[in-house]
């Protein structure tokens, strides 16, 4: 008797796709991290000398029955991510080349150049670096591959932002006589205007071991308040009025990353507070606790930047106007997520 020829399976059958069909993103991402609740029943093989195992549920205060259900809304895997960032970096490089060739850099207002780009924008690279530092161990601890990857990509984003500032100022040095980037580190370390921002950065980098907290507060509180005000409202919005056409372009790529990261954080909040999650209510309380803890720090960091708005030769918008717009957008975003903004409480 001949055995029936079985029709073989030609795709990964163990992944539950987010859409109708298994995406390339899911195929190359899902279950790269072993899942003891699914196929890896033996648990973890090794402990550290201190007794911890590879991944621990206690790495976040949030609870979820299956972290592997998370999906990045941007569906990035390394190839698409690197391609996207290579395109962004190439576009920055070209914009700088074009500005150098056309002499556009020479149109930049000298006060804007010295005070805002040379100091304020340069100081921002330290802040981005701190966020990079916070996300690197967060990706290490995340409780699934899909979460580890978005955190890893965001770590890389932040180093990209920090480096882009330094390289851009080097381009300006090459093209504008008399301009020198001294690093502005003393300003970052000592100027009272930046101390609340540095405090925020150091707390995130050194005292926030909860990987979910790092992702949620950076993308839902710190960026929408501090980066939106200090980078988007001030630098990006003011720049064209000071003859500066390239900086807004660079910040445009940063804002693109910010949107992408906000989207995954939104999706993450949805995941842990979803109707099927038994701990949804407790998770909501935890997240609300993070919001209440980080919003005052973010507001303090943002408010301390008010004097910089005065330093720009042309006051495109007042600090108050910019602040109101930023916070309105933030509060509306929190409402869309069914979260309570702590902005009103703090001010």
């Amino acid at each position, binding site marked *: 008797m001949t055995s029936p020829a079985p029709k073989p399976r030609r795709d990964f059958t163990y992944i539950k796709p987010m859409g109708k069909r298994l995406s390339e993103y899911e195929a190359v991402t899902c279950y790269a991290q072993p899942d003891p609740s699914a196929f890896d029943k033996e648990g973890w093989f090794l402990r550290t000398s201190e007794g911890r195992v590879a991944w621990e549920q206690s790495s976040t205060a949030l609870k979820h029955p299956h972290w592997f259900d998370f999906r990045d809304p941007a569906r990035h895997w390394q190839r698409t991510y690197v391609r996207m960032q290579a395109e962004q970096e190439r576009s920055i490089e070209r914009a700088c080349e074009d500005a150098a060739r056309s002499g556009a850099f020479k149109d930049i207002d000298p006060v804007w150049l010295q005070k805002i780009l040379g100091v304020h924008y340069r100081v921002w690279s330290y802040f981005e670096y701190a966020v990079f530092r916070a996300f690197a161990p967060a990706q290490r601890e995340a409780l699934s591959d899909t979460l*580890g990857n978005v955190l890893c990509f965001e770590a890389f984003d932040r180093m990209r932002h920090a480096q882009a500032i330094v390289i851009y100022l080097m381009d300006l040095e090459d093209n504008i006589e008399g301009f020198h980037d001294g690093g502005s580190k003393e300003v970052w370390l000592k100027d009272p205007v930046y101390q609340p921002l540095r405090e925020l950065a150091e707390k995130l980098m050194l005292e926030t071991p909860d990987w979910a907290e790092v992702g949620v507060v950076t993308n839902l509180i710190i960026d929408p308040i501090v980066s939106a005000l200090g980078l988007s409202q001030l630098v990006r919005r003011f720049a064209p009025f000071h003859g500066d056409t390239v900086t807004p372009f660079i910040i445009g790529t940063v804002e693109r990353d910010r949107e992408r990261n906000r989207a995954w954080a939104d999706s993450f909040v949805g995941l842990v507070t979803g109707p099927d999650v038994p701990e949804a209510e407790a998770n909501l309380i935890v997240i609300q606790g993070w919001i209440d803890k980080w919003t005052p720090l973010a507001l303090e960091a943002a408010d301390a930047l008010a004097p910089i708005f005065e330093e720009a030769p042309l006051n495109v918008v007042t600090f108050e106007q910019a602040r109101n717009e930023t916070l309105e957008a933030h509060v509306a975003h929190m409402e869309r997520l069914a979260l309570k903004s702590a902005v009103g409480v703090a001010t």
Partner: protein
Amino acid sequence: MRSLVEAHDRIKDFEWEPSYATKQDRYPTKYKIPSKTKDPFRHLVRDYVSMEQEKDDRQYGAMEDALARSGAPAKAEGRWMEIMKAALPILSFGEYAAMKSCGQLIETVENAELRQGYMAQMLDEVRHTNQELYLNRYFAKHAEDPEGFAQGLQAKGTNIFNRAGRAALEGFFVGDPIEGALNLQVVAETAYTNPIFVAMTEVAATNGDQATPSVFLSIQSDEARHMANGYSTLAAVVSEPENLEHLQKDFDRAFWRQHAFIDPFLGVVYDYFQKERSSSYKEKWDEWIAEDWIGSYIGKLEPFGLKVPRWYEDAKERMTWIGHSAALLAFSAWPLQFWRFDPLTDKDFEWFESKYPGWYDQFGFFWEGYRELTDPGMGASTLSLFESMPPLCRVCHMPTIFPRIDTNTARVQMHEGRKLPFCSEACQFIFNEDPQRYLAYKTWYELYDGYGLDQFIVENGLLRADGKTLIAQPHLEMNDRMWTIDDIKALDYEIKDPMKGDLYKDWIEEPVDASPSAATVSP
């Protein structure tokens, strides 16, 4: 023109002394790392993404286009393709573990230059994980027999060899972060990526598999940077004299832990799954590990006080036979796996005898017998040739049959009332250095003791789409000689924990003296 050196100097200056928050000791380390070292390499994010995109386009482009359209994977040697089913799931975990290792190195190592290097490696490791899973899926789509590729990540958790692999690779990030870097960058990447990604590529290409070389060589092009990370980390560590005493111990352990899995596993991959034959794994090992890594790389570090790893000579001596012993177990336990096994031919026998003189005397009887038992009609399986399945080592998880079953160095030690088997003096020593590190998990036998073989197969999804035929087969024929679950039921084979009962009572011995905690163990 932008000066790369100047750009790097400014980027290294991102670090500052924090004053508003205190760093927590998230990944405790015994090591002191100086804050200034040599740059591991110079790449800005901008150059890095552009370079990696180009490499990705070349590799994925080739796979999506010419290779897929020409049906190349389906034309590769069946014997070779089968072992890729086993290799890719475990290899991809190694990459993923490496990504985690980089995350904790960035957190721990207070050195701006090294942090930049670790960051690029962190993203490289996502790249490699994705590439290998992409290749796995590519084979599922295009290989002649996709069953096994499609289930690899699901099946790996319960597979005895994949478990051993995961246990070794967890060493990349479960422990002191510097110990992790030694396991990952100094041993696995510097010593073993050449035999994995370069030499294996030759075997693949010789056997008609063009997709694997395309992926592996692209991966290997990142490894030089990782080796540089390892070298810079090591150089930073040895520059502090007080690090040396920890370093040698961690290095000794790292080498043995990686060797104990990688060498027997690669030995099987190379020597038993080549159809068109070229070099042996032993030859590759002598070239890449003995001459290149020990002779040249480690030699260069000796002036700094780092010595050849403690069990290197033991490992070298084992190399003649461990691959063959592992193959014997893998083939005889074929129903537990998720890939197929091509019996050796007379031509293979000749090759083995020429590469490993004395092979036939030691192993010929098994391979002659194996050929006789591949037909389900015989009503017997190779598993029934043995009195019991071998104990699995508590530390490395490999069977305790090395270097050969008849000359094995296995031993059993009592620990807190349990009989724990070890494959070697080295694994037992490593256990006694810190026993709690190796007691977190359930052994394979604890999970499956008392299971019927058929029950194990059904429960772990090791059946093909018809729900009857096994994914694993002891031959490559796609015909009525394929084994079904009914054939397995007829064997009436039960999985038994060999440590239950008295079978291995003669092996029990005193613990080797590794640390004070060993003194608590009584025979």
